């Protein structure tokens, strides 16, 4: 998951960035509205966190321009004042949720997960596809009710695939959404990770949860459970 944070308060930005990275998100940061606006226009984001009180350009304006440009990723706004007028204005400009400063990072993470889940069309915190279930809150994967041990990278990959279950995702899209700017983007790594996930989720090779479409990418092909 690729997240952009626009926040001018350096300590807060650092704290949130560190915690998001710890959770396995690829994080882009901006301390000014203009930089953030550009990043949001150019990068394939899964979500953005925008502080409303930015020095050079109001956060609301950044959000408005993104939406005017047709950018659809979910946006969470941070506001220091907590006035309903500000919240409503932010939501009307195109944000999807708000958080009043100061906040607990856990709350921010929970809101963020919910937003990303919603864009994939999921309404539950547990993504249920046949025997495979992924609990976004607990970051746990189960196969037919039994917990499956996965590494952080494997989890990230599986989460992205399951969030967009049923749609084909290219390797480029996967690397763009899963990796930091400076990380190694060798596509062999992806193939290795997909191979490992297949072995863990489908030990007897009957389920085939992740299919490879030659030249197009991958697709999580198990049907979503109702709900």
């Amino acid at each position, binding site marked *: 998951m690729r997240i952009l944070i626009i926040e001018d308060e350096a300590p807060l930005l650092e704290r949130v960035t560190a915690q998001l990275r710890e959770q396995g998100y690829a994080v882009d940061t901006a301390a000014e509205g203009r930089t953030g606006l550009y990043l949001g226009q150019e990068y394939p984001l899964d979500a953005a966190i925008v502080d409303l009180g930015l020095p050079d350009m109001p956060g609301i304006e950044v959000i408005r321009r993104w939406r005017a440009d047709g950018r659809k990723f979910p946006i969470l706004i941070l506001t220091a*004042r907590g006035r309903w007028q500000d919240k409503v204005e932010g939501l009307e400009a195109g944000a999807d949720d708000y958080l009043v400063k100061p906040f607990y990072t856990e709350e921010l993470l929970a809101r963020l997960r919910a937003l990303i889940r919603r864009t994939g069309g999921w309404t539950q915190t547990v993504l249920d596809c046949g025997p495979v279930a992924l609990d976004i809150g607990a970051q746990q994967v189960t196969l037919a009710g039994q917990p499956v041990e996965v590494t952080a990278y494997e989890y990230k990959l599986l989460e992205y695939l399951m969030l967009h279950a049923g749609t084909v995702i290219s390797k480029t899209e996967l690397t763009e959404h899963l990796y930091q700017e400076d990380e190694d983007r060798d596509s062999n790594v992806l193939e290795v990770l997909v191979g490992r996930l297949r072995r863990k989720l489908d030990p007897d090779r009957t389920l085939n949860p992740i299919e490879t479409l030659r030249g197009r990418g991958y697709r999580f092909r198990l049907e979503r459970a109702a709900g």
Partner: protein
Amino acid sequence: MHSFSGRLLIAASVVLAAFLGLTGLILDRAFQDSARAAVQDRLQVQVYMLLGVVDVDAFNRLTLPKALPEARFSTPDSGLYADVMDASGHLVWRSPSLLGRALPFFPAVRNPGDTQFAPLESAEGDLLFLLAFTVSWEVAPNQYQLYTFRVAETQWNYLDQLWSFRRSLWGWLLAATGVLLAVQGLILRWSLRPLRRVAAEVTEIESGQRLELSSNYPDELQPLTANLNTLVRQGRTLLERYRNALGDLAHSLKTPLAVLRNALENGASPEELRQALIEQVERMNRTVDYQLQRAAASGPIALSVPLPVAPLTRRILDSLAKVYAERALSLHSEVAATTAFYGDEGDLMEILGNLADNACKWARRQVVVRAWPAEDDGRAELIVEVEDDGPGIPAEQAPLLLNRGQRADPMVAGHGIGLAVVRDLVEEVYYGRLEIGYGALGGAKVRARLRFQAR
């Protein structure tokens, strides 16, 4: 120009100067014309007088006697001159006053009975008025000859008269201008005095010597002073509220600080200290949030336009629908298009937003927001009601919820200060009441009664 008196003085001076200047010019012109006409009349009389003494000699020539009826014709350089020309332009007679000089050539001989009059300059540089009169003289029976009689007078007299007239004319006009301007200045001072009084009284209000502007102002100023008074009163209430809020804030921060200090002094274990710190920091945070929101309230605005409630309710519900998107709540509003609120938009948003947000947190499927106008003793009121189909609020819990910073359910995300903020807004800022009860949907129903004037 930054002052009324300055502007009025300049405008009036320009108008006065233009008016009096024009008057002066016209009078000057009229005087010149009449003075010239008088000169012309006088010269005409002289011509007739000369004609009266004309004689014809033996050679049928025109002659004039040595002793003329007007002595000035005989006195050299007297300023009054005359000559006579025949039809071919030869001078047949000149008055002795000319003494070797000649009148400037003017005009050519014309038809009998013609008169011509013009100011001219003589060869010596004297300014003259010259009148020429042509006659047909019967020198012998049935023998007529054309003669032109010319009479000239220097302009000394005329110019003297003109300048003395001008001196007194412009003198009087200037004096009149001065008097008019002075009078106008006095009128200005007198009629602008109430404005200076307003300024003085405002200064007194600033320095605290006075609470309000006095009321005996001219009709034109009454709306201004009344509005100023309203603003002053509003400012005072605000100030009082800020003062109270600041006091409340300081007091409410004292308790958590005391708890922390106690924990430190009593040698609590690191784990206990940590726990105390977490609790008290959260408490302080809630206090600050609560006071912040309270301080932002503006209150009823006496000069405000009525604010329609329906669109605002719609905006709040649309925003909440977005925030609670995954819970698929049905959010309804029952507000007539004419229902209005007489206060700050932010305040109403705060009330509606907090109540509706709370309702959304607790609701199972439904939230309804209603608002309708009411009246109490002729004063406009607005009733706002928010209802949900959640578990409801037990009567014994209601007072707890309204307490500052109380959180009904710590597990539901968000700050539990919403209801307390609404209570403060409703009861302290809008002189109203907040009631918590059960509604028809089975859940909580919160009703706020907002008033726009103190009782």
